[in-house]
């Protein structure tokens, strides 16, 4: 391995990459477009929060409930209420036992179960308790003690409700990384098809030098764009090292995929044909973050799940190394397996 030779090859690859108008344009426009999409999304959560209520008996006071910014929706069962909270339809759910009204009128302390979504903020929890007290007041005309039993449904991220743009952030970052699969694959397939690789390999540069140079060029493009995007949109304000590590591992994943596609593709069109399905599949886990409930648990089989989950949790909820190390480890494992496969396939093609 010769750093001087590798440096020359990286410089050459980056130069050729940006002279390909298609990739130069999608690289620059990609960042701009994603920034536009990000900043066009609402920067704050919807002012009106929906709270679900289940009560087996009719309580006249419900009709009088009117809190600014809160909307109450009655559901028909506690199970339905729990599921709606898990699915994110309600920020919280209040389940009243059948004897609530009787207890209230009798001046006894009724017990109330309250369910919260994973990312319900503390102020919402406080607000819901106040609402329940008001309910008691509206029903009896006097302040009453109520036993409130709280239950957080799903993984408690203990953070704030996410503005749509922040939910979208991991998706956009991952898309920026993924697109570089095509860029690198095109560089590799062109190198093989035009036989410039033969000219390189009769110089003192070795196959390893060429692989490393391609890897560095690809990682620089993929990681560089994603890191730049995250920096601009504030995605590095929390746990920047964790986020950057995840993005770097994601970039390596993409480079490995680029090696494989570059080895099997014959030209730019076949690179596109191979890349698009791969990119679409790998982006699916990001949709689970951007649009909760849209994707089921099978996405955990995809390596990018561990990338977007880490970026989401670290950048949006401040999760540290202790929370995401398993994700990073699994992602690194996928990287190793794919990189090994990519190098093997490419080496075979070059022969």
């Amino acid at each position, binding site marked *: 391995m010769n750093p001087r030779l590798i440096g*020359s090859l990286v410089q*050459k690859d980056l*130069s*050729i990459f940006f*002279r390909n108008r298609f990739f130069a344009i999608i690289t620059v426009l990609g960042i701009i477009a994603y920034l536009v999409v990000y900043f066009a999304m609402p920067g704050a959560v919807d002012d009106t929060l929906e709270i679900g209520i289940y009560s087996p008996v009719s309580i006249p006071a419900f009709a009088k409930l009117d809190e600014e910014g809160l909307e109450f929706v009655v559901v028909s069962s506690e199970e339905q209420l729990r599921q709606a909270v898990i699915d994110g339809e309600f920020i919280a759910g209040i389940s009243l036992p059948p004897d609530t009204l009787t207890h209230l009128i009798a001046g006894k302390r009724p017990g109330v179960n309250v369910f919260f979504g994973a990312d319900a903020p503390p102020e919402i929890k406080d607000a819901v308790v106040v609402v329940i007290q008001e309910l008691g007041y509206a029903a009896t005309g006097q302040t009453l003690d109520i036993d409130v039993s709280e239950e957080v449904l799903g993984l408690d991220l203990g953070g704030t409700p996410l503005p749509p743009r922040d939910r979208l952030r991991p998706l956009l970052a991952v898309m920026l990384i993924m697109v570089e699969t095509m860029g690198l694959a095109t560089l590799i397939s062109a190198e093989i098809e035009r036989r410039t690789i033969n*000219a390189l390999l*009769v*110089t*003192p540069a070795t196959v390893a030098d060429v692989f490393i140079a391609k890897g560095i060029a690809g990682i620089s493009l993929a990681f560089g764009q994603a890191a730049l995007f995250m920096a601009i949109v504030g995605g590095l304000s929390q746990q920047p090292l964790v986020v950057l590590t995840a993005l770097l591992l994601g970039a390596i994943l993409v480079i490995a995929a680029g090696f494989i596609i570059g080895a099997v593709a014959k030209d730019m069109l076949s690179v596109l044909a191979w890349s698009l399905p791969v990119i679409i599949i790998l982006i699916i886990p990001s949709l689970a973050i951007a649009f909760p409930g849209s994707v089921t648990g099978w996405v955990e089989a995809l390596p990018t799940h561990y990338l977007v989950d880490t970026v989401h949790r670290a950048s949006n909820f401040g999760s540290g190394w202790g929370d995401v190390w398993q994700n990073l480890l699994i992602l690194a494992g996928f990287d190793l397996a794919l990189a090994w496969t990519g190098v093997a396939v490419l080496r075979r093609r070059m022969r």
Partner: protein
Amino acid sequence: MNQAITAEELTYRYDNLLAVDHISFSVAEGEILGFLGPNGAGKTTTVKMLTGQIKPKEGRAYLLGMDITRNVEKVQGQLGICFEVTNLYEQMTAVENLRLFARLFGVHPFDAEALLERVGLAGRGKDRVETYSKGMKQRLMVARSILNRPKVLFLDEPTAGLDPTSSEAIRNIILEERERGATVFLTTHDMMEADKLSHRVAFMNQGKIVALDTPHNLKQKYGKRALKAKVLNTNGGLEDREVVMDSPETPRAVQELFSREKVVTIHSEEATLEDIFINITGRGLVE
């Protein structure tokens, strides 16, 4: 004289196809060897083995005294290779192409413009290669192959399909490199070019070397000299006549030609390398 290239029983198979069949030869330092043969004869495969691009299935190749398979990187640093197929970075300029390879070979300082001038591309260095004609690209390929002042220069069909001006420019560079002391391994199926440039030529056919000698010796051994004449026939048309030279019967045959026929034109003709190749193999160089 030291040998720059030595091949011992070199053999290569592509699956069931025996492309190169146990060939042995050597090329002295400073010599130009013309490697002639029709397409598919095994010339390019031989070059690939000699330059370390592929490993021989059998036999050994020594370049500058080193076994190429064991010293690939060390040997390749002293080789210059001009490939049969144009393989330049077309999105880059000529200067950028040359500078990239100069860095890879560790050539410093490097004057790209001077080299471009030498191959007749002065003033075009900052143009992207994709805008070049075939001849210009080929000249740039040759420039790239000599930028590290190689001790052994491999040129694989360097003038194939080029216009006479570009071909002549490349031939001049080959001669300049020989003057510098480089050994040149010239693969071609242009017998005129090989005849003009080579100290010796090797004929390759179906993976084997069927003849290897100086062009003069090959012509002496396999060729025949003749007098070619055009004579008037009784209808006023022209007919060809041939008198074989270097035969005891030649003086009498010439005398009879002039006494019996009305000779319009007459000239001597020497066998070409192509004639000799056909004579040896029964097939032409260009098929």
